[in-house]
């Protein structure tokens, strides 16, 4: 019965007649209408959930068709939407390739998150979904808006607040737990600081400019600022540098860059309901990455590029990225709560994205051999990791949600042997864990590989990059360690008392189809992008081709990757290559050979209890739990902080 409305949205807003800019506005309007409708329907959790899902899907259809349009037939033009023209409040929107990538990410993650929410939110006894679905849709609308507006001041502020305040409400959704309120407050404060920093930066560029031209409404417009920038860079280099430093701080806070991310991100992500954690980590923190790329690489027009110290900013961003990825991951290794562990890994993975961006920035102005092409490879890696991290981290948060749903706890120490009870969730969790740890044939490997290639080969032009690359490779092993623990002690190992009791109580622990489907879809996406990386690389090349400002053209022209279905990806001089399909074929054939080999002796199989060195049964206190893993490494890096505060009762078990 809801089908006609859904179709109506599509036909009204996504048809051929609309420009990409109008479509984005349409998507935002659909979200806002959806927020009102779900608020009215919030008495019934299921109906509100399905309505929210339908509205989210409608916007996703509109957004994806827009993205396809922009990538295939090039960007349109900046378009103005007068909101209150009397006071100069004119919304100016522009959808180019870079915006398209982030719009695509938001659309791809929001639909599974919305579907997952329907059944998941039913579990919250005593909490009304009136404070969930409307905020979810507003939050989504704000992200669409933030990556599309060209206004660096007022509409930036409006969309930023529209993202921050619903985000705040969603994080403190479980407000009966005081720690969630504290987490939400931290988030709110940090986001307001970030907002202020970014707006002061924009003000510096717009007001102190040699020619603060433009009408009142367009004074802070991206294009006006960009046009003023060459004059600014030559006459007032200090003010400009200060503005860029403020941008780095502002967007750094948003994306969870060291040292700012540690303040809010590990508290905020676990406090929110799991689908929102997926949105926060998968999409929201990426708006910081968008801002960083847009302001540092797209803002400076060719005329001002000679005075713009891009290589120095590149060194700073790459260095901060390396510190972020190491500290975030090392702190994650110490965690024993599922979602807190994942939140720290978000910091770690943002570090990889920053490193890729930093590599791009430090190589672009370099004179060395092939520096431009390698810079483009670095940006490809960063953008691909934005997409890939969105997919696998959203999946991991949904997995954590399913585990919470099944066991009622986020504590890894109390879990064990879940694979027997929820096999499908276990397989998707394994795919996600392999993806984030960079196992070949999964999407995380492709983007990390790209970043390593750019960093190592770029060493010829920027000496420090090789060391950064090695630290990134080392951190990848740490990520693996953390996820071996995450996946191993929860899904493998042996059933804990808690899991056995829950299984006996509920009969089954596996989640329903509407929670399975998003997990399976995201897992398939991870595998698809890992096995056919050509899809991702073509997408990014199209995105760069469809963006013309700043360094966009130079990056697009480099076209450093050759891709193909069987050929996989290959860098421009064929100095690095990865052909996953060939590799998968060899691996698969050898797997069959090995399987045949193991059957040669036609040995019989029998199930038996593990040998406990003479003990008859295993008590819970003798289990080797998450807390016990990697003791030595945790001890050596105690100074790095992030040690979990021990939940009551847990220490008593182990000591």
């Amino acid at each position: 019965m809801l089908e006609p409305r859904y179709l109506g949205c599509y036909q009204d807003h996504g048809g051929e007649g609309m420009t990409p800019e109008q479509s984005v506005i349409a998507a935002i309007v659909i979200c806002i209408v959806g927020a009102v409708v779900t608020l009215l329907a919030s008495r019934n959790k299921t109906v509100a959930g399905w309505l929210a899902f339908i509205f989210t899907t409608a916007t996703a259809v509109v957004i994806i068709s827009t993205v396809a349009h922009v990538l295939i037939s090039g960007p349109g033009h900046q378009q103005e939407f007068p909101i209150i023209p009397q006071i100069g409040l004119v919304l100016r929107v522009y959808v180019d390739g870079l915006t398209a990538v982030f719009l695509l990410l938001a659309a791809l993650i929001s639909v599974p998150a919305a579907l997952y929410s329907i059944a998941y939110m039913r579990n919250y006894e005593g909490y009304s979904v009136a404070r969930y679905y409307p905020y979810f849709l507003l939050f989504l609308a704000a992200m669409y808006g933030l990556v599309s507006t060209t206004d660096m001041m007022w509409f930036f502020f409006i969309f930023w607040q529209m993202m921050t305040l619903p985000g705040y409400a969603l994080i403190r959704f479980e407000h009966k737990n005081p720690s969630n309120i504290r987490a939400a407050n931290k988030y709110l404060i940090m986001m307001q600081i970030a907002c202020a920093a970014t707006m002061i930066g924009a003000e510096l560029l717009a007001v102190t400019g040699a020619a603060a031209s433009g009408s009142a409404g367009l004074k802070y417009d991206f294009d006006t600022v960009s046009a003023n920038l060459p004059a600014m860079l030559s006459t007032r280099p200090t003010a400009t540098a200060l503005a860029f430093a403020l941008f780095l701080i502002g967007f750094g806070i948003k994306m969870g860059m060291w040292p700012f991310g540690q303040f809010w991100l590990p508290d905020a992500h676990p406090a929110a309901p799991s689908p929102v954690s997926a949105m926060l980590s998968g999409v929201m923190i990426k708006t910081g990455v968008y801002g960083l790329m847009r302001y540092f690489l797209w803002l400076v027009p060719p005329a001002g590029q000679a005075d713009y110290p891009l290589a120095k900013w590149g060194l700073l961003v790459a260095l901060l990225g390396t510190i972020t990825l190491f500290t975030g991951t090392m702190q994650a290794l110490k965690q024993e709560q599922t979602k807190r562990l994942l939140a720290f890994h978000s910091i770690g993975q943002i570090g990889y994205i920053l490193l890729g961006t930093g590599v791009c920035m430090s190589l672009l102005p370099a004179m060395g051999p092939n520096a431009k092409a390698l810079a483009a490879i670095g940006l490809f890696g960063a953008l691909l990791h934005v997409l890939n991290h969105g997919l696998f981290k959203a999946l991991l948060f949904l997995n954590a949600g399913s585990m919470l749903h099944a066991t009622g706890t986020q504590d890894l120490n109390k879990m064990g042997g879940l694979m027997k009870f929820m096999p499908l969730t276990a397989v998707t969790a394994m795919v996600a864990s392999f993806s984030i740890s960079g196992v070949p044939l999964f999407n995380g490997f492709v983007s990390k590989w790209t970043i390593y290639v750019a960093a190592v080969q770029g060493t010829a032009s920027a000496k420090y990059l090789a060391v950064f690359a090695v630290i990134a490779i080392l951190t990848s092993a740490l990520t693996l360690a953390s996820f071996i623990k995450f996946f191993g002690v929860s899904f493998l190992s042996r059933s804990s008392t808690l899991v056995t009791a829950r299984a006996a109580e509920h009969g089954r622990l596996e989640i329903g189809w509407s929670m399975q489907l998003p997990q399976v879809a995201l897992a398939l996406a991870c595998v698809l992008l890992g096995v056919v990386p050509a899809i991702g690389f073509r997408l990014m090349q199209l995105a760069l081709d469809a963006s013309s400002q700043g360094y966009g053209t130079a990056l697009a022209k480099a076209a450093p990757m050759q891709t193909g279905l069987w050929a996989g990806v290959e860098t421009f001089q064929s100095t690095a290559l990865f052909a996953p399909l060939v590799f998968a074929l060899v691996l698969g054939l050898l797997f069959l050979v090995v399987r045949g080999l193991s059957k040669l002796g036609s040995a019989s199989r029998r199930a038996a209890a593990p040998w406990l060195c003479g003990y008859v049964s295993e008590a819970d206190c003798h289990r080797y739990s998450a807390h016990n893993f990697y003791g030595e490494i945790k001890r050596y890096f105690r100074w790095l902080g992030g040690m979990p505060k021990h939940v009551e009762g847990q220490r008593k078990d182990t000591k």
Partner: protein
Amino acid sequence: MKLAWIILSALCNVAIVLLVAPFFQGVLRKITALIQSRQGPPLWQPYFDLLKLLGKEDIESGQTPVMQRFAAYLSLTTVLTLACLMPMGFPAPLDGAGDAILVIYLLTLSGICTLLAGLAAGSTYSLVGTSREMMTMIALEPLLAVAIVTGAVHTGSFRLDTVLNGSVYASSGFPWSGAILLGVMLLSFQAFVQRVPFDISEAETELMEGPLMEYSGPKLALFKYAQMAKLVIYSALFVGLFVPWGSALPFPLSWLIFWAKVSGLVLLVTLVAATHARYRIDQAIRFFASLLVVALGALILASYGY
């Protein structure tokens, strides 16, 4: 024609690794015995061991036997795939499927299989072993990565045939970075191939084979086989990175020289293993950490062209 050559050389590598690995294990056991004034088993004993294990009863103690089977099959599969990627006396068969970064991650994947096996078995002892194995991997992987990255920095390429051809020495003057890394690798090689004094995760005398404790029959055979083959693979990797001399000779000669070098390396591993006692995990990690600092120093030298 090219495809036929790829398939033929890949098959050749796989077959040789499968055939030779137990023999090296036999040599290892025999020499260890001789050093310890024992007679030791005959050289072909490992072949018999593997054959016997293949026919033994397969007891699955974990709650998810599917995972145990998957891990066992994948562990030998990964090592054999690596065999297709290595140049062994002639160019790497699968040079067109991946590069040196893939090799680093595949070596990690073969470690992951052991970890999954240990976790799926679910015994406390195998979990202790898993944790130790992972910590060793964390400390070791960067050492190998530094060696490969140094080669890539010198040559500007990640291609297997370029990197695994003495690329660490490819600097313009005296190869300082290559020489330092050779020392680092020699000091840590024992750990890569999981032999005494760095077989901490297995530690037969305290953890009873660690992650593999619960395994028997064909699965144990596969794990053991993978471990033996890993010795060959790592030796081939070491030879490719650090002892490239003679690889440019015509085919049969280069092939013979390659296997002579690998045998020499296996002999060295044996001698060290037979004359040392096992380290504790914290001692080992501290040791690897100091090696890593030295290796990073070498990498910095390499980025400046030394």
